[in-house]
């Protein structure tokens, strides 16, 4: 590639030895790249530095004043216990959504993949929740979870005695997680369907001829080939758990008693609802740590897969 461009420059220059042209060729890449870099600087890099600064200040947006407060924001955030609570709630939410949606998404993908007809119909049906506006569907779910009269209390509530989910500190997070699964399954299924397309068919057929049972074929051929799809789906759904906001804001508002207050919801509540910018900055740093942790785990897992593949 390098040579092609270099050759082109050599070929192009002698015929038109205009210095202006030469200059514009040299400047061209910078004209193309600088808007992007400037905007990333303003909206990603500068905010990173700003967050660290904001942790140590008491900022009044309306008055435009910054007051240095040292470690007080951090001490308060720890003292109130809300950060610790939100970390626990976020991890609980991840445990309630990541494993179930991955297992169910894989089952859906295996089902659809094995079909001779009608696969694209089911794919569309399961993907519909992914495409729908989550906030609007949360309004529907909120109504389905309505105390006494809602569908959930009329059915599950009557059969199992689990009623008024959204106002129960034990059931509000599971209710939100149920919607999370509802939305996530189709997404995981699509990831696995892409993975299944890459499973070597001749190996499956060879195993079949050798008399391997369906379970053995899955466990020894299909599942290992799905490694990258699994890592991918796991990381995406974990990051989704870190980002979850819409369902919580519409269905529970983090309650009751902060029992469904995830980190992203706390971020909004601190920074916007309480107008406590410094406190919001502290939550941001925790959120960033989790996001980087997720990326790091993904990098490690895919590197291990690569090594396993090259053996």
């Amino acid at each position: 590639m390098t040579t092609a461009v270099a050759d082109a420059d050599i070929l192009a220059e002698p015929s038109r030895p205009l210095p202006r042209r030469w200059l514009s060729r040299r400047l061209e890449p910078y004209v193309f790249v600088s808007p992007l870099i400037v905007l990333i600087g303003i909206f990603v890099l500068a905010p990173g530095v700003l967050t660290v600064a904001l942790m140590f200040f008491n900022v009044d947006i309306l008055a435009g004043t910054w007051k240095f407060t040292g470690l007080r924001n951090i001490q308060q955030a720890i003292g109130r216990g809300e950060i610790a609570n939100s970390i626990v709630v976020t991890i609980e939410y991840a445990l309630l959504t990541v494993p179930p949606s991955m297992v169910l998404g894989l089952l859906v993908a295996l089902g659809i993949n094995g079909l001779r007809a009608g696969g694209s119909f089911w794919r569309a049906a399961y993907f519909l929740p992914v495409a729908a506006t989550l906030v609007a569907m949360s309004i529907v779910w909120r109504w389905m979870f309505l105390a006494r009269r809602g569908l959930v209390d009329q059915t599950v509530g009557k059969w199992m005695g689990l009623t008024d989910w959204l106002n129960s500190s034990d059931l509000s997070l599971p209710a939100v997680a149920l919607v999370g699964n509802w939305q996530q399954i189709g997404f995981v299924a699509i990831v696995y369907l892409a993975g299944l397309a890459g499973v070597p068919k001749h190996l499956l057929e060879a195993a079949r001829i050798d008399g391997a049972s369906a379970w053995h074929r899955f466990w020894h051929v299909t599942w290992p080939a799905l490694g990258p799809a699994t890592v991918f789906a796991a990381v995406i759904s974990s990051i989704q758990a870190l980002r979850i906001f819409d369902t919580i804001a519409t269905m529970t508002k983090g309650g009751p008693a902060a029992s469904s207050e995830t980190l992203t919801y706390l971020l909004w509540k601190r920074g916007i609802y309480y107008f406590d910018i410094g406190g919001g900055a502290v939550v941001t740093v925790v959120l960033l740590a989790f996001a980087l942790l997720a990326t790091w785990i993904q990098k490690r897992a895919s590197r291990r897969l690569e090594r396993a593949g090259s053996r």
Partner: protein
Amino acid sequence: MDPEARLAAPRKGGQPVTKRSTSPFAPGQIAVHVALAAGAIFMLLPFWLMIRAALTPEAEIFSGNMLTLGTVTLDNFRRVFAEVPILRYYFNGIFVVVAIFIGQVIVCVPAAYALARLHFSGRELSLWIVLGALMIPYQVTAIPVYVILAQFGLIDTRSALILPFVANAFGVFLLRQFFLAIPGSVFEAARLDGAGAFHTLFSVVLPMARPALVTFGIFSFVSHWNDYFWPSFVLRSDAAATVPFGIVRFLDAELGSDYGPQMAAATLSVLPLLVGFLLAQRQFINGIAMSAGQVE
């Protein structure tokens, strides 16, 4: 010949190791359809209940069989149009997603092209900046970006919904991969012809990027049309409200326990994307599945 077809084809001369029915009506196939249908009820039930309640008179919403339609009325929709400025939300939503996408094309296509195909000092650094930005979910920049926008007096404006998303590291990354897959000679031919930088960009690079832009465009449209998180940071009133923000605000304020109009409003919010999805399923699935690539 595609391997599936080869396997399905009857073997000549080979020993019949397994008998494998190829009929779509084989018992195993039917069982899979039944299982998928059972799961699909869970996936589609909320949509059905929403539409049913939206079409049912307020008094009958909780009565009767939830699985059938009773009296059909459009009153709930009439109330939404009368009381909720939903057309303004639609307008704001369309304005915002279109502006974001145009901005993304203007900023990201040239940058991705330069990062893929032009040589200049600082290229490595620029690439690292893009990859770094890619790892940071935008929730993490929400508070500081909010502070920056507030400094410029942009709170509660459509600009606040647009500006932070114009430089999309993921879009650059994706387009760059796309340009890298196109032979460099294609671009070089245009340059040798003496075409200027911008001419090359508009007549060669942009048309070539179209397939990638369609996928990225759907991703961008869907994620910003649906977004509720960022509007709830920078919006305070109805003026610049997009559909998700406007609807929730209005429901909580005006339609507290009027479930019929609530469901009608929800239907109206979901409708544009559902129609789009049903019309262009494949592109939609690709576009949304791409959001996954954001952490890659």
